């Protein structure tokens, strides 16, 4: 399994494409082809590639297991009798020996023999599979070519494969979701066994540190999620309060007012904002924006926490700007010129045209961008970790410090963990609840977007 093999496979696939095409052209003399010759080419290529690739992938997945199995059988009793984890270490030694990497100590004869065995098995297996795959590819090629007849519905066949690929791709999201739910569910359930759900859902106090000791499990009020979710809400709201107007107006300006060169330059520039590492935003919020807000606030005689929600929210808003501006700009740009003309010809100003005709027509796309921005705000971690702090105040005052769900998840997970204490498990419960909350938000959003959708043409 090396570059050479894959090159050969690709070469074969290319050849089969050409052969299929050629045969199609040839047989077209005996009857009108159902599809374009390219499709016959693609058809044969698929026959050539898919089975061979499948086998190759299977081999790559199974090879380690198979080789291990074979090696272990050959090992003397003193090794093969070891418990599996020890055996793993021995095998690691053998592999290190075989690949000529550094090994520890002086390997004994048995290991050396095993290493040689391993090496030969590995090269043999690879060679065998390579040969097998390539023969399979050739067979597939032959089979495909044989099947090329004018009546073969090659296009439909190829399209069926493409369609299958499309379907598989779109179900990936489902698998991801299942994976996420599964990977947080069990721990969350364990958490709820230790902390009663009502306390978690309705508690007004969040203070995981109290319960760090086993003897204080479930100490009253320690695991109330309300302040944490309020914090997320507050910071997201501040972020969107900045990002939505700035993003939307930027999009409108860029797509409707700005000249082409300006747009071509400014849009990618704004997109850079999305790629600045969140750590950098975190520093920016914690060291520049936070203190500035505090100073200004104190000059105005306001009580401002040094890690105010405002600072984190604003900086997060900056990061989200391109999510809204770029996506909206694209959909606004896609609104047909006809519609603008129709409005302008009635004597509408540009602003009126944009507000009342273009934006409604682009609404579904814009909502998509805004939702993406909201999602990002809710799910963002690093900025809030660095700038929003950990104190779980139940407040809607943007000048106070709040904490967010993501901050809590991260600190609970990357800090000192104890997987038998609700302190760490709380992270999973928070994750699960966040998932459910955003799910509800999205359902609402879907319904709203459906209702206001304006389809042009």
């Amino acid at each position: 399994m090396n570059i050479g093999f894959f090159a050969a496979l690709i070469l074969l696939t290319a050849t089969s494409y050409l052969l299929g095409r050629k045969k199609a052209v040839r047989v077209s003399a005996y009857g009108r082809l159902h599809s374009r010759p390219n499709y016959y080419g693609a058809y044969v290529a698929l026959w050539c590639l898919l089975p061979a690739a499948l086998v190759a992938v299977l081999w790559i997945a199974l090879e380690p297991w198979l080789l291990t199995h074979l090696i272990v059988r050959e090992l003397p009793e003193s090794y093969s009798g070891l418990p599996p984890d020890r055996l793993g270490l021995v095998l690691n030694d053998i592999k290190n020996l075989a690949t000529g990497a550094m090994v520890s100590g002086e390997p004994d004869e048995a290991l050396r023999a095993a290493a040689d065995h391993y090496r030969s098995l590995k090269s043999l297996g690879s060679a065998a599979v390579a040969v097998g795959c390539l023969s399979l590819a050739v067979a597939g090629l032959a089979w495909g070519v044989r099947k090329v007849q004018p009546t073969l519905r090659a296009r439909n066949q190829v399209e069926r494969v493409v369609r299958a690929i499309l379907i598989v791709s779109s179900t990936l999201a489902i698998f991801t979701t299942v994976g996420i739910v599964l990977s947080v569910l069990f721990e969350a359930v364990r958490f709820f066994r230790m902390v009663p759900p009502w306390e978690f859902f309705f508690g007004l106090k969040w203070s995981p540190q109290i319960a760090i000791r086993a003897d204080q499990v479930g100490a009253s009020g320690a695991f109330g999620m309300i302040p944490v979710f309020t914090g997320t809400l507050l910071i997201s709201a501040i972020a969107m309060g900045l990002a939505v107007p700035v993003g939307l107006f930027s999009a409108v300006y860029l797509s409707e007012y700005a000249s082409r060169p300006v747009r071509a330059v400014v849009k990618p520039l704004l997109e850079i904002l999305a790629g600045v590492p969140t750590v950098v935003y975190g520093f920016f919020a914690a060291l520049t924006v936070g203190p500035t807000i505090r100073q200004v606030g104190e000059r105005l005689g306001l009580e401002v926490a040094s890690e105010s929600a405002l600072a984190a929210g604003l900086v997060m808003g900056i990061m989200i700007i391109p999510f809204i501006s770029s996506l909206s700009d694209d959909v606004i740009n896609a609104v047909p010129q006809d519609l603008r003309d129709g409005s302008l010809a009635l004597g509408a100003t540009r602003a009126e045209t944009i507000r009342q005709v273009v934006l409604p027509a682009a609404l579904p796309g814009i909502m998509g961008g805004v939702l993406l921005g909201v999602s990002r705000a809710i799910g963002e971690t690093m900025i809030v970790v660095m700038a929003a702090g950990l104190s779980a105040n139940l407040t809607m005052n943007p000048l106070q410090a709040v904490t967010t769900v993501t901050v809590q998840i991260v600190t609970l997970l990357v800090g000192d963990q104890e997987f038998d204490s609700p302190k760490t498990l709380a992270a999973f419960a928070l994750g699960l609840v966040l998932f459910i909350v955003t799910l509800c938000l999205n359902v609402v959003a879907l319904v709203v977007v459906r209702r206001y959708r304006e389809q042009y043409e």
Partner: protein
Amino acid sequence: RDYISIVGSSTVYPFSTVVAEQFGKTTSFKTPKVESTGSGGGLKLFCAGVGVEHPDITNASRAIKKSEIEMCVQNGVKEIVEVKIGYDGIVLANSKQAPAMKLSRRDIFLALAKEVPDPSGAEKTVPNPYKTWKDVNPQLPDVRIEVLGPPPTSGTRDAFLELAMEGGADTFGWIKGLKKKDKNLYKRIAHTIREDGAYIDAGENDNLIVQKLEANPNAVGIFGFSFLDQNTDKIQGAHVDGVEPTFENISSQKYPLSRPLFFYVKKAHVGTIPGIEEYIAEFTSEKAWGPEGYLADKGLIPLPDEERSRMREAARNLETLPVD
């Protein structure tokens, strides 16, 4: 796998990585991979089992707990070598623009505990009433208490609670008495940090705290000694119980807030993963962890000479922790 895999404490990480780098440079072994996962996370990975997919070494800024040893044993990690590598001073520091602080552990406790002994002298606690340092101790400046410190999930915080807060609490006789009578109550008093904004959880990034101190001369930060060492032009360490946090004072154990640092080795991997013994040898060599060694340069406070040589012997002989 032909390289050593190390996980664990973010506090030990800077030292561990220097050794790893030196080790990689001066031997023919590959440079070990060092991950910073926190002490608890590291021990969890470490104790997950024996085998190539599990780390060989974990760093910790505290000693391994009994429950963790049990978990290790359960997963087949029966032989664990403990290596104590030195000390880390926990310092309280503020900006150079403000006058230096001279604190006692009692001041620290009174300033940061959620519940403090009733100022009137009764043997009960009241919610912390102190707003300024001056309220705590008339000799301290009249500025608002504002302390940036590690979050509850960090090992540094645990150490701080044990060393500073307990130390402060113990200066009240009746609280000290509780230790025996009602351990829970004692811990609740000594280990609960106030949550009214005077203490700010500042996350795991100590540089961030240093920079915040620079911006805010009234604030006091809590972090490891190496960060003070590197930023002596900007910040100053507070005297604790009259002792300045300096290299010498910490290594001579005069400074009260210092904690030992460790790493743990999975003995089962020695001899199969190449280089583990050599890595231990490098770490415990005088040019690394000695008073003149390169780790001291990075801010590690070395063990006293005698303990160091004892430790070296134990480590090189791979003496394992007792398990029961």
